[in-house]
Every structure is written in structure tokens, then in C-alpha cells.
């Protein structure tokens, strides 16, 4: 502690750690309270949709914001997770959680596969390759009628089995609040996992690759391998969102995973603030709730949505995360360091 710079740095780090735990605590309280505040079916449904979208957004942000891989096909991994888990349950009678693991694994492996293939492509080529992958997955779901029933869809998908401990039902997932706790809890754990990963040396490696891959390579960092790793993790998280979506909605149609869904997820990440994990969480919530709030506008609601998206990009390019930072600095809550 003789180094004065280090001595000064330590309390700052401790404060950061404390505020992080405070943040986690607030998140847990919010997750517990939300379904108690919003008790009607409509808003409880939206809450769960929010949680699913949060999973999608943080997964994509991990790929896009931390390794700079422009993935325009996130809907594909979402759809693969949903269809693989559902088909295993419906066709083979495999228990839900085993099918869940399979769906997550399949989506992750598909992401690794695409990334391995695309890792030598840069920027816009990867963008179009991933878009192409999403189009192919959507078309396969639509046209492999003997397996997926195509546009007719799969109906009557059961919710996850009730959580029973020692003969007592702890949580019955036919209940909307219980389902929300399940998905939000999972999203919360994924968030902690990803944010620990981002803060670890791995995260620093990823940032180095994003900022300048050539310089990173000169330090002996294998950029390609880490990009593939990040892509796999992000797609696996999308796969989990897909499994939850299928069992929550109870119906699967291929059009839920059209490329426009990938654009929606991308918009959540950008509006929230790419490259921060917390930003996309709020981006996902905002862009899920906004179209619902605007429902009174009828046909014009998505026009307003599109305009809002353009407006954010024009005037708040760092998204909600940047806006929050500006507000905090204005209020003087942030130390000048």
C-alpha cells in the first residue's frame, strides 16, 4: 500500500463492488415485486416477454458489443432453441429440462458452427452471412412440414413441469407469476454470469479483440478462437430464450423467428447501449413495453416505434446507457475521476 496511486484506487474499486452488489439486490427486489404490482394477465404476460427479450438482448450484446461481430441472425438461434426443445418434448417425450439443455446446446453449437465458418469474414460480410443463416433456418422451419408442421405450427406445448420438493408443489408454471420468476431468475443468473465473464481477464481479451484485432494478435491473442467462443455463448443464451418462449406461449410458428425478429433484438441492444450489459437489459424492457403502451395509436404504433428507433440513433447514439451516464454526471453523482 505504499504506492499512493494504488491506495487511491482501492477504495474506488471497493465502492464499485459495493454498488454492483447494491444493483443486484435492487434487481432481485424488482423481480420479486413486479408480478405482485402487475396482477392482471395482460401485464404479467408482458413481464415474461420482457424477461425473454432481456435474455435475447444480453446474448446478442455479448457477441456484438464485446467482440464486435455484427450478428444479424440472432433470430435463428432463438428459433433453433425453441424448435429443438419443443420437438424433443412433443415427438420423443423427453422431459422438459433435458430438452431445455439440448435446445440450449444445439443453439450454442449452431452459433459456433456459423462463427467458425464466418470468422475470417469481416464486418458486413459476417452481417449478411448471419442474415443468410437466419433466412435459411426460417425457410427450413417453414418447409420441413413433416417435422415442424410448417406454417400451421405446433400447438398445445405444455409449460415446464411444476417444481415439487418432498411432495409439496413449490411452483406451478401454469401460473403466470411463477413462470415470470422462472424466466426472470434465469435471465438474472445469465446476466451475472455474463457480467462476471466480461470483467474477468477473458472480457479484457474480448475487448482487446474488438478494439484492434491485429494488435491483439501481436500480443499472442488468438482472436478467432475467442470470437467463436463468444458467439457460442451468446447463441446458447438465445437458445434458452427460445425454449422458454415455446413453453410460455404454447404455440410455435416459424414466423416468430423471421429475420425481422433479429432486427428487433438488435434494436434493443442499440437503444440500450451496445457494449454495456446493463443497457440492453433496459433496451429490451423499453422496446417490449413501448409498442404495448402505444397500442392506442392503432396502425401508427409501429410508425412511432420506427421513428423512436431512428431518433435514438440520431440523437443518443450511446443509447440509454449513455443517457444515464449523462444524467448522473449532471446530477453530480459521479466522482470526477
Amino acid at each position, binding site marked *: 500500500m505504499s504506492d499512493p496511486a494504488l491506495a487511491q484506487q482501492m477504495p474506488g474499486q471497493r465502492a464499485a463492488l459495493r454498488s454492483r452488489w447494491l444493483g443486484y439486490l435492487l434487481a432481485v427486489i424488482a423481480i420479486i415485486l413486479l408480478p405482485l404490482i402487475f396482477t392482471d394477465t395482460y401485464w404479467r404476460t408482458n413481464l415474461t416477454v420482457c424477461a425473454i427479450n432481456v435474455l435475447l438482448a444480453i446474448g446478442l450484446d455479448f457477441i456484438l458489443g464485446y467482440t464486435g461481430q455484427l450478428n444479424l441472425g440472432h433470430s435463428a438461434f432463438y428459433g433453433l432453441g425453441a424448435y429443438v426443445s419443443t420437438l424433443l418434448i412433443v415427438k420423443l417425450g423427453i422431459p422438459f429440462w433435458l430438452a431445455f439443455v439440448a435446445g440450449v446446446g444445439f443453439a450454442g453449437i449452431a452459433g459456433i458452427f456459423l462463427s467458425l465458418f464466418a470468422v475470417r*469474414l469481416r464486418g458486413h460480410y459476417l*452481417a449478411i452471412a448471419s442474415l443468410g443463416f437466419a433466412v435459411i433456418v426460417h425457410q427450413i422451419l417453414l418447409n420441413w412440414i413433416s417435422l415442424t408442421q410448417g406454417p400451421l405450427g405446433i400447438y398445445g406445448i405444455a409449460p415446464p413441469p411444476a417444481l415439487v420438493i418432498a411432495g409439496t408443489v413449490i411452483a406451478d408454471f401454469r401460473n403466470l407469476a411463477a413462470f415470470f420468476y422462472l424466466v426472470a431468475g434465469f435471465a438474472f443468473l445469465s446476466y451475472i454470469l455474463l457480467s462476471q465473464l466480461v470483467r474477468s481477464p477473458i472480457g479484457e481479451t474480448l475487448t482487446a479483440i474488438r478494439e484492434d484485432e491485429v494488435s491483439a494478435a501481436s500480443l499472442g491473442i488468438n482472436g478467432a478462437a475467442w470470437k467463436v467462443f463468444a458467439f457460442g455463448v451468446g447463441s446458447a443464451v438465445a437458445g434458452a430464450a427460445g425454449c422458454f418462449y415455446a413453453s410460455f406461449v404454447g404455440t410455435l410458428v416459424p414466423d416468430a423467428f423471421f429475420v425481422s425478429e433479429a432486427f428487433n433484438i438488435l434494436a434493443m441492444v442499440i437503444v440500450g447501449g451496445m457494449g454495456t450489459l446493463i443497457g440492453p437489459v433496459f433496451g429490451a424492457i423499453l422496446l417490449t413495453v413501448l409498442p404495448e403502451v402505444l397500442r392506442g395509436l392503432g396502425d401508427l404504433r409501429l410508425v412511432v416505434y420506427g421513428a423512436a428507433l431512428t431518433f435514438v440513433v440520431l440523437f443518443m447514439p450511446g443509447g440509454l446507457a449513455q443517457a444515464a451516464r449523462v444524467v448522473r454526471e449532471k446530477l453530480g453523482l459521479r466522482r470526477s475521476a
Partner: protein
Amino acid sequence: MTTTIVLQQAINGVVLGSLYVLVALGLTLIYGVLVQINFAHADFVTLGAFAAYFFMHLVGGGYILSIGVAFAVGAALGWLINASIFTPLRRKGNELLPLIATIGVSVMMQNLMLAWFGPIPYAFETQYSSEVLRFAGIFVSWQSIIIIAVSSLTIALLYAFMKFTFLGKALRAVSQDRETAGLMGINPNQLIMLTFVIASALAGMGGAMLAPVLVLTPFAGTSVIVKAFAIVIIGGFGNVEGTILAGLIVGLIESYTTQYLDPGLIDIVVFALLLLMLAIKPTGLISERREENV
């Protein structure tokens, strides 16, 4: 009999392909000059189709003139959107933001059209669709002949413009190296605007000619644009000759897949080809040398 089918489908493929070329050329021009992917391009196609439809049904104009109207509407709207949204954004110098803005603009345009025109498909028929020329067992509608004539003329004009006029050369100079072109006294901003207007006009015109083939709803352009992206990549981003070649190939793939396999497989075949291209030769059919600064 089989040769007739092969020939018939070849003609259908070329008709479709030349329309895809019109749409994809706009994308590739914008990419060449701006290094930007434009998702709103799809909606210029849709808007062109609607402009032609309403010009014929409300004003009572002829079909060929309506193609010109769609061209003008595309150009005007291209100018408006570039001036109001994309130009201010480019000054911020981030490459991802304009991409997201094009998604925002696309959502806005699609839903404005949905609010105005409704979700029910419009039947777009021209007097030329039913008039058919027949020779050696092959049918060619006048509609197809008009499409091939107008699009090849447009493509030839564009090509001549790019190759032989001063503006066209300046445009190619900017797409090769924006900074150096700027040092040579070329104003990149004016050329960006020009590119945007040309691209949007081509998309509008393509829409007017695609309308009889498409199911004309506010979302009609999306199905075209996805293929146009594939074409742009297969042909090599920013490469005009490659785009023309790839557009015709994709048109032919579509007509032969419909004939011999299943119409539902079209996109799968096209995008499998795209991924294959990316695996083997990511620079496209005709590659241009492009230096990358490290």
C-alpha cells in the same frame, strides 16, 4: 418437350433476374460509395410498386409511364431520407448507427404504408400481362418483354454513366478511396446524395415492374431485398458487373427451382449458394482489389 421447358424457364429466370439486378444494383452502389448496408432499400421497392399502382388506378395513366413515375417517386424519397436522416448520421462517423437507422426508417415506412394502404394484397394487373407472344412452344408475355427491355436499357445507361461520364468516374473514385478522391477535389457528400437518389430510383422502378409478380402488400419488398442482399454478396460487394451476373444467376435458380424442385426451396438454394460463395470466394464472382488499412 423438355427443351421447351428449359427454355421457357430460362426466359422466366432472366425476366426475374433482371429485376433483381435493378434492386441489387442500388444496394451495391450504396455499399460501394458509403460502405453501408441499407435495409430501407426494400421499402423503396414496395413504394415504387404502390406509386405505379395508384398512378394507374387513380390517375388513369399507362403502365409504361407508371414505371417512370415509380422511378421519380423513388428518387424523390431517396433524396428526402438521405438528407434528413443519413447525412446527419454519417457526420457522427460510426458505421453501425446508420445501419440501425436504416432499420428504423424501414419499420417506419412499412407501417406508414400499412396504415395508408392496409394489409390486403392489391391485384396489380396490366394490359400487357395477358397478351402473349408464342413461338416454338414458348410463351412470352408483353409484360416480360417490357421488363427485359426497360431493365436492360436502364442497366446499360447506368453502366455507360459509370464508365464514361465525369460524374460516374468520380463516383467510382469515391468508392475506391474516399479520402484520396476528396483530395482530388471531388465532393464526396454530393456524390453520396447522387448515389442514394440513383439507387432509390432504381429500386422504385424495379418495384413497379415486380409488382405484378409479387403479392403487393406493404411488406412486399422484404422478400425481394433478402435475395438482393444475397446477390450483392455473390457478385462481390460494390461490384457492378458481378451484381448483374449474380442477379441473373439467382433469377435462373429461382425459375429452375420452381420447375424442378419446390418453390419453397428457393431461398434455401439461394442462401446455400451464398454461404458456399462466402466459404470459397468471399470476394464474390468478380473480385476487385481493395486494400484494407490496418
